[in-house]
């Protein structure tokens, strides 16, 4: 699309280092959605998600994450969040899951057709000698001034040297139909 005063280029040159592995979509009511049998052939994983839950609340809510079905107290969490008036920080140890606290989902009394978004990275997920670190940039907004909608940066660690072969996303109220988690693999050189 050449535009006066602009040097424009358009191409569809595929790169082979970022690949779609799988997508999980909620039919409605599931309290968890999982990716299983994740191949160990990538350097990192990325999850891009749209999430809404069935909780009857006008605001955003938390999304919990576990690896390899491990529900032991083997995780820790940190977060830096904003709710439109205040920036806040918190952390915790010996948790039974990773978490995107208050920002990973939109509840079902919020503006219709609106979903929270999460951009999650898991580095060196296939290592058998290192613990695993997850980070996420997440948030929700519903075109209001309410401080019930939160966004932020999130970090969690899983204290296991096992390769990550499955990822489970959980919300106890259940996911709204249309909630989608897309898993991508990023290759190293």
């Amino acid at each position: 699309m050449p535009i006066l005063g602009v040097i424009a280029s358009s191409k569809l040159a595929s790169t082979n280092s970022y690949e779609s592995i799988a997508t999980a979509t909620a039919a409605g009511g599931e309290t968890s959605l999982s990716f299983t049998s994740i191949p160990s052939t990538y350097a990192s994983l990325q999850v891009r998600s749209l999430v809404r839950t069935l909780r009857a609340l006008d605001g955003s809510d938390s999304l919990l994450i576990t690896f390899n079905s491990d529900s032991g107290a083997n995780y820790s969490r940190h977060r830096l969040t904003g709710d439109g008036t205040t920036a806040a920080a918190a952390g915790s140890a010996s948790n039974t899951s990773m978490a995107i606290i208050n920002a990973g989902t939109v509840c079902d009394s919020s503006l219709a057709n609106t979903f929270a978004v999460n951009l999650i990275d898991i580095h060196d997920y296939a290592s058998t000698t290192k613990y695993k670190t997850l980070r996420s940039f997440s948030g929700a907004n519903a075109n209001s001034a309410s401080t019930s909608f939160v966004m932020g940066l999130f970090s969690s660690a899983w204290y296991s040297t096992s390769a990550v072969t499955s990822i489970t996303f959980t919300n106890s109220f259940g996911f709204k139909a249309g909630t989608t988690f897309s898993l991508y693999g990023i290759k190293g050189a």
Partner: protein
Amino acid sequence: MPATYESIATQTLAVGASSITFSSIPATYTDLRLVFVCTNVSGGDQAKVTFNGVTGTSYSQTYMYSDGSIADSGSSANQPEVNIALGGTSTTIPTFYTVDVFSYAGSTNKTLLVTCNEDKNGSGLVSRAVGLFSNTAAITSVTIAKSGGTYAVGTTATLYGIKNA
């Protein structure tokens, strides 16, 4: 497996301009990512994003930022655009933005994740924001505009498409 992260188009300013638009965006991807690196010639500093030429009151955002001395959060609703800049873009040092648009071709409202990084050797700002375009139509065009003045020669915007399985 097929590659799923593709460059759709790049625009680099050969002369100063107050906006850059990507139009006729195909609906064949799941998400969009816009990478924008700019310097200013002059004028207002606010970089703003709109979709499909829509202004009105369809946009909102919540953000948090640090300018090197404080961390704070703010929000706005019923706006004519998503304001993706909080600081003042330099005439010489590029400011770096990314805008991720989720399910841009879907029938839900469109949620964005925005990053802004600028450092000017003694001042600067880092910010993160979640924005909403309260419109269920598929996005077919994206415009990055300035509140005043022009972006400098060499300002570059690249639009990527990301496709899921």
